[in-house]
């Protein structure tokens, strides 16, 4: 039993809902076309296909593209040692997914982190609060349109934030022959040599 076989079983069960398994460097990815049915696919993957371990859930901000968000589920099965990746796209208007925390308990905190950092909500989540930042912080800092230096905010008695001085940064590297070429430099100085 390989990950590809399991992905084909998923395709057999859900048909048009899921894409053909895509293989890249021996890792299998399956896209789910309807984000509202992701929990259904996950439940089948766990209960029938034996993916009993949810490794991680991550979110991607494709700013400027439609739909804006991509959410990625990394699954693993301890019995067959196969790894499968599920991907789904959500529009900025909805920014909402069904929770999988009732399928894998561990999803509880992963979903809270995505809600905290990216602002995607999870319907049916038992306790959807911020997990890293504090209640009342008005932004979602992992979004591409959020500046690295931050924005000022104030929650009295709890926390405050100010913008950080970047002094020409953030600093980036570029490939080069010598170490001095590869040194981190500010973007401005890279563009105007």
């Amino acid at each position, binding site marked *: 039993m390989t990950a590809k076989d399991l992905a084909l079983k998923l395709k057999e069960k859900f048909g048009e809902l899921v894409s053909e398994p895509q293989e890249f460097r021996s890792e299998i990815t399956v896209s789910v076309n309807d984000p509202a049915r992701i929990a259904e696919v996950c439940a089948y993957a766990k209960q029938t296909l034996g993916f009993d371990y949810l490794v991680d859930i991550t979110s991607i901000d494709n700013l400027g593209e439609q739909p804006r968000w991509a959410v990625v589920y990394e699954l693993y099965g301890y019995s067959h040692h196969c790894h499968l990746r599920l991907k789904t796209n959500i529009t900025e208007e909805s920014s909402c997914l069904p929770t999988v925390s009732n399928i894998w308990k561990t999803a509880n905190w992963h979903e809270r982190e995505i809600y905290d950092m990216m602002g995607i909500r999870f319907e049916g989540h038992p306790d959807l609060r911020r997990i890293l930042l504090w209640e009342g912080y008005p932004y979602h800092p992992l979004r591409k349109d959020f500046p690295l230096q931050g924005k000022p905010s104030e929650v009295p008695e709890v*926390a405050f*934030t100010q913008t950080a001085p970047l002094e020409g940064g953030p600093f980036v590297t570029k490939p080069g022959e010598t170490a001095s070429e590869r040194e981190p430099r500010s973007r401005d100085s890279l563009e105007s040599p």
Partner: protein
Amino acid sequence: MAEGDVIVTRLDAAINWFRKYSLWPMPMGLACCAIELMASGASRFDIARFGSEVMRFSPRQSDVMIVSGTVTYKMALVVKRLYDQMAEPKWVIAMGACASTGGMYRSYAVLQGVDKILPVDIYISGCPTRPEALLDALIKLQQKVSREPITSMLKKIT
């Protein structure tokens, strides 16, 4: 000097002398600098040689807050509250690049230097700071304490 002899000195010199050799730290360990702070307390570097081995995890019994590590905005007001709970006289050491200036964390989440919320007496460079540098800072703080006039202590208390 035989028993019953008398020494005459200035009151502030005597009080400062007592204080400088019993600076009890409040270990505000927030990141990797706290590991070096622990090393300073252990036998190789031995902060006890300077009278500061009594790490009090209660602000009420501490004299000097050693802010060792990255102060995030989430932690900033907690650090401030602990400092406010310390009894006068009190001092602050900003240990390492993060506590002094925010260090490499030019970001939305990190306070850019603990001196934005606390009056810092000594800044130490380093990422993380070596224990020797912390001991040097402690000796410099002792020198500062020994120069403190008694009138300023009274002013602080009243």
